């Protein structure tokens, strides 16, 4: 667990807004939420959720099953509209926006239950991620002018370059739905990265992976942060992964934040142990 911040990870300054208060740099936060909450038919699924994430921070969101972690992701990505509070992405209030508009502001995500474009190729999945970075319309797509060929070529190269992060260039022509499970999870990350995000949300990226794959994933997550200089927030049940790479951790229980801090702070927090870590020892 102590080997967490070595090798290929260079130290990145994290702004003071972040979960870990003592780090400092004058960069504004990429995400800020104030009193964020949502109700489903009177049931408060998430309540008074306040969180700030620095521009290049890796943050973890943990909590027991049903604590509302994925609901938080759905609120941040505007899949759900909050009943209370605000989500500020890259300095802009997202009130009234839909998921597509939030994506254009620079938030990207993966899904707990993988949602790839299963009938399309691996490359096309990445190309969909690049959709908003190429700019030819329907008519030039049909008429096939020079701008079509130029941009298609650029898009193809960019897609392969992104796939190379996870060494997946050779799979570009395969059907996404036919990939093995782990590769599907990685493809989801590549697709999210293709949208050129400032904040990447990963919903249980290590689910279903073996320890070796998880180890690789941890390295890759820090590598992605360093290479793209983006913030990453992840939901994960694998505590080795969370404690290993997350600089700040936020613990959720019954829709409320019960603790925020560094890995060591969280591990020694009695409330967290009661709500979460204590439980984990049994199973």
């Amino acid at each position, binding site marked *: 667990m102590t080997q967490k911040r070595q090798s290929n990870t260079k130290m990145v300054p994290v702004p003071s807004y972040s979960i870990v208060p003592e780090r400092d740099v004058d960069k504004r936060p990429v995400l800020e939420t104030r009193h964020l909450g949502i109700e*489903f038919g009177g049931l408060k699924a998430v309540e008074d959720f306040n969180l700030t994430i620095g521009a290049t921070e890796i943050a973890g969101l943990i909590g027991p099953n049903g604590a509302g972690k994925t609901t938080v992701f759905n609120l941040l990505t505007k*899949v*759900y509209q909050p009943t209370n509070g605000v989500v500020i992405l890259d300095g802009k209030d997202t009130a009234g926006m839909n998921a597509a508009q939030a994506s254009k502001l620079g938030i990207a995500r993966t*899904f707990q239950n993988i949602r790839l474009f299963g009938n399309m190729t691996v490359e096309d999945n990445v190309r969909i991620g690049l959709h908003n970075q190429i700019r030819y319309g329907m008519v030039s797509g049909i008429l096939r002018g020079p701008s079509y060929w130029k941009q298609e070529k650029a898009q193809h190269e960019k897609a392969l370059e992104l796939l190379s992060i996870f060494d997946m260039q050779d799979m570009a022509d395969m059907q996404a739905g036919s990939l093995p499970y782990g590769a599907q999870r990685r493809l989801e990350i590549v697709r999210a990265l293709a949208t050129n995000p400032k904040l990447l949300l990963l919903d249980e990226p290590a689910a279903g992976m073996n320890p070796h794959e998880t180890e690789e994933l941890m390295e890759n997550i820090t590598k992605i942060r360093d290479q793209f200089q983006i913030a990453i927030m992840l939901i994960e049940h694998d505590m080795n992964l969370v404690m290993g790479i997350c600089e700040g951790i936020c613990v959720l229980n019954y829709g409320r934040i019960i603790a925020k801090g560094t890995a060591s702070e969280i591990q020694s927090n009695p409330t967290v142990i009661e709500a979460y870590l204590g439980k984990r020892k049994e199973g």
Partner: protein
Amino acid sequence: MIQFLSYLCNGISLGSVYAIIALGYTMVYGIAKMLNFAHGDVIMIGAYIAFCAMQYWGFPPVISVIAAMVVCTALGVIIERLAYKPLRKATSLAVLITAIGMSYLLQNVALLVWGANPKSFPSVVGLGALSMLNGQLIITSETIVTITACVVIMIVLTLFTSKTKMGKAMRVVSEDKGAAELMGINVNATISLTFAIGSALAAVAGVLLCSAYPTLQPTTGAMPGIKAFTAAVFGGIGSIPGAMLGGILLGVIEILGKAYVSMELGDAFVFAVLIVVLLVKPTGLLGKTIHEKV
């Protein structure tokens, strides 16, 4: 004014038939999450069976209706087993196309068996009409029987789904098939039962529809079927009182629209209602909201 009351009665009568058909749609949609497009054509088959029983075999009306119900019940269960059950995990596109195919199959089988010429359907009621307000307002016995049948059916069905074991099983399956299975409920049997009840009601609806509008031909069920689906959506799909309310409102809207606005655009009104309801309140009048899980 008298004229209006008379239209209103006709509307409620037609609406009651829609309501009975809509019950079949709403129950099947609630439990199997599919739009049984062929339901309207089961009505037509039911009417033909009752017609044959009365005209060719000389059975009394009551026996004929029961015969139609038995045949339709069997038909409904067979259709479900052969065509829909294998597609339980398929996309809604595939299921709907299959159901449309089934609808056409029934229509064309009827065309081969009974021919394209419309049959003149004899009324199963055969009582005199009720005359009110010095004979200015005449309510036919068919209207009275139809409305009564509709109310009785709704009460019985509501009691069935809330009080009996099988009825409760149906509600559980419509909530969550997986959980129902774990609780030891036979999901396949429950779905079959739903189709059986819906189809038996379709037979009743067919007989009542043809008693009021006595032209029987292979396409008789298609339009009322679609309109009854509209009624089910209008009232809130999956809701039994909703189907009743939606059916009657739709029948009234159709008859009044035809009478006061335009005869040619009568059907267009019904469909306009469907579109408006789906856009303004997709859950219908008495339906409940469903959240999409992400």
